[in-house]
């Protein structure tokens, strides 16, 4: 059990526990804050996977924009500052069974795959992950088309969100 494995176990425990708290806590602001802890854990996981650029982008986009958007939306959609009443559906035990079945099904399906316990390959020295990612995003025979389509998608979402939420005073 070396250091990397210990770090992974710790981060994985933090991710799963805070995710559970996100979906079960009563106070919605606390749920959003626990989501931020989960997202931070996922960013550390990306750093463990040698995807440093993705780790920083995760913090910038998810924690710096999406989580703040959630907190703003929670604050703007309540009549009073406290939450009242149960926060789970009456049939929540059914969805718990469905979630457990999903998890069991996924793990069982993974068991039958031969490559499950493979270890990570060595990263060749001098491998520039950020440069390779940049090349892949704009090379014509790589991923430039999904990249441009994603930017059009973001533009459409921007216009749609502004139009839907706009109030004319």
């Amino acid at each position, binding site marked *: 059990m070396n250091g990397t494995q210990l770090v992974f176990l710790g981060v994985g425990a933090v991710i*799963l526990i805070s995710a559970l708290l*996100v*979906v079960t806590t009563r106070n919605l602001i606390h749920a959003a804050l626990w989501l931020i802890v989960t997202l931070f854990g996922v960013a550390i996981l990306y750093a463990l*996977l040698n*995807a440093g650029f993705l780790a920083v982008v995760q913090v910038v986009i998810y924690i710096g924009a999406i989580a703040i958007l*959630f907190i703003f939306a929670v604050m703007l959609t309540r009549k009073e500052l406290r939450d009242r009443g149960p926060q789970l559906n009456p049939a929540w035990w059914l969805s718990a069974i469905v*979630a457990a079945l999903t998890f069991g099904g996924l793990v069982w399906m993974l068991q039958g795959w031969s490559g499950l316990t493979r*270890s990570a390959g060595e990263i060749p020295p001098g491998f520039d992950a950020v440069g390779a990612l940049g090349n892949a995003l704009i090379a014509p025979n790589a991923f430039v088309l999904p990249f441009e389509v994603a930017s059009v998608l973001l533009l459409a*979402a921007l216009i*749609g969100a502004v139009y839907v939420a706009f109030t004319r005073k």
Partner: protein
Amino acid sequence: MIPLSWFLILSAGLFSIGLFGVLSRKNAIAILLGVELMLNAVNINLVSFWRYGNIADMAGQVFAIIVFAVAAAEVAVGLALVISVYRQRRTVIADDLDMMKW
């Protein structure tokens, strides 16, 4: 070294927890929080397959970036809709939003 199975089981667990959140919460914003957890689980899967496969093939990371963009777009539009609904109906409990027009 960390075997690939650890990452995949972690992301399966995160996905199931997100699924539980989507299916069982009342508040519309809490449902969107569950969707965010599911998207993060998918991203962990994509990046770990990139790392444990052919590192020179950047498809895993590019996919993960596209998922970032899609998640951001979906959250923006979803929360705009929730806020707009709150202004009209004064509630965001998903059970109470059961009529198209009245």
